[in-house]
């Protein structure tokens, strides 16, 4: 790993002031540190944001669950409040990686990285999340812009993610047996305004599978998905699964999620 200047920061102002075109914010470091070791990324300054108190914690209201960006996966998985208000989200957090990853990895880090197979981006899309940064609010459908790309500007820092509590929801994934990243993951959420079917692992970026969500908005039952066609065009194909297989898994896991709602 190439060397860098490490900065531990105490507030958002200090952290964002240090940011430059050759810096990175460090939360859990579950992707940033391996990427630097593998030579995929190098930075002049690493700005640690974990000691900024206001970035960590969980707030639950009648309509939403708001999670601070440096809140760890284990905290979301074990939170009694989240389990009660939004059990699909605590179950998702429990299924990320392994216990050591969950003890370090953070929700803000996960969505800022926007790995095409990560779990949390699907929760953001399914639960109509609002991403609060140090200077604006971004709706989830405008946040994830492409593979490892988001609409965050350089030096912009995620402070919290606000999830809308739906009437019903469930996340089901087919995990890679080694990494637990989703080969395909489907987060179904039924809101008053309609149904979202957020898919991760299948394309280069998380997306809302409109054909299935339209069918479910008309009739929220697993059987209503039977006749929906999910095209394999644009779907990932790799050593783990072909595009056709993944396209079929989108339907299979959407049905599983609806049945478990």
């Amino acid at each position, binding site marked *: 790993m*190439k*060397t860098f200047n*490490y900065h531990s920061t105490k507030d958002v102002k200090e952290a964002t002031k240090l940011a430059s075109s050759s810096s990175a914010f460090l939360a859990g470091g579950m992707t940033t540190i*391996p990427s630097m*070791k593998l030579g995929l990324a190098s930075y002049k300054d690493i700005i640690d944001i974990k000691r900024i108190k206001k970035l960590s914690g969980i707030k639950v209201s009648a309509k939403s669950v708001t999670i601070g960006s440096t809140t760890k996966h284990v905290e979301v998985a074990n939170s009694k409040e989240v389990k009660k208000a939004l059990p699909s989200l605590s179950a998702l957090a429990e299924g990320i*990686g*392994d*216990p050591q990853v969950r003890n370090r990895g953070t929700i803000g880090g996960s969505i800022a990285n926007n790995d095409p197979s990560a779990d949390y981006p699907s929760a953001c899309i399914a639960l109509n999340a609002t991403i609060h940064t140090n200077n604006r609010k971004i709706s989830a459908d405008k946040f994830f812009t492409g593979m490892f790309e988001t609409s965050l500007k350089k030096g912009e820092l995620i402070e919290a993610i606000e999830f809308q509590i739906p009437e019903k929801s469930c996340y089901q994934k087919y995990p890679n047996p*080694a990494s637990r990243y989703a080969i395909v993951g489907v987060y179904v959420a039924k809101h008053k305004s309609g149904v979202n079917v957020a898919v991760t692992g299948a394309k280069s970026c998380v997306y809302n599978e409109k054909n299935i969500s339209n069918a479910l908005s008309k009739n929220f039952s697993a059987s209503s998905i039977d006749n929906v066609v999910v095209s394999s065009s644009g779907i990932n194909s790799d050593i783990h699964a072909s595009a056709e297989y993944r396209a079929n898994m989108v339907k299979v896991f959407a049905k599983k999620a609806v049945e478990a709602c």
Partner: protein
Amino acid sequence: MTKVSLEVNGKKVVKEIPDHTTLSVFLREILNLTGTHVGCDTSQCGACVVHVDGKSIKSCTALAADLNGSKITTIEGLVSNGKMHPMQEAFKKTHGLQCGFCTPGMVMSAIDLLNNKKNPSDKEIRDWLEGNICRCTGYQNIIAAVKEAATKM
């Protein structure tokens, strides 16, 4: 360079280190605590698992500077009054190790499991040890070791 102050296995340690020093490098190369092993060095194999403030983490994927002020426990810190920890005893008794490379990480991870859950099922043990790889594939006896330790801890 950055000055870090940590408590490692009950002893206070203050060192001036390069900013990019990982905890695994800090333990092995600066403190000569080579019981913590480095396998993949990219947080997949779990050989480097140690406890930070009582919780298991992969030491190859944490910066020592970032853990300033923390309490670290490594495999060397488990012995008490010359006696092995019940988890170490259990690994010995059930033949839970073959080449032994993964063992420090397995032991540290398994202790964290039992700290969270007293009598885990086979499935819970297997799920928890997801992040620890044994290339001798000696998993059956590792599960047996954790179950044995659960009766002693």
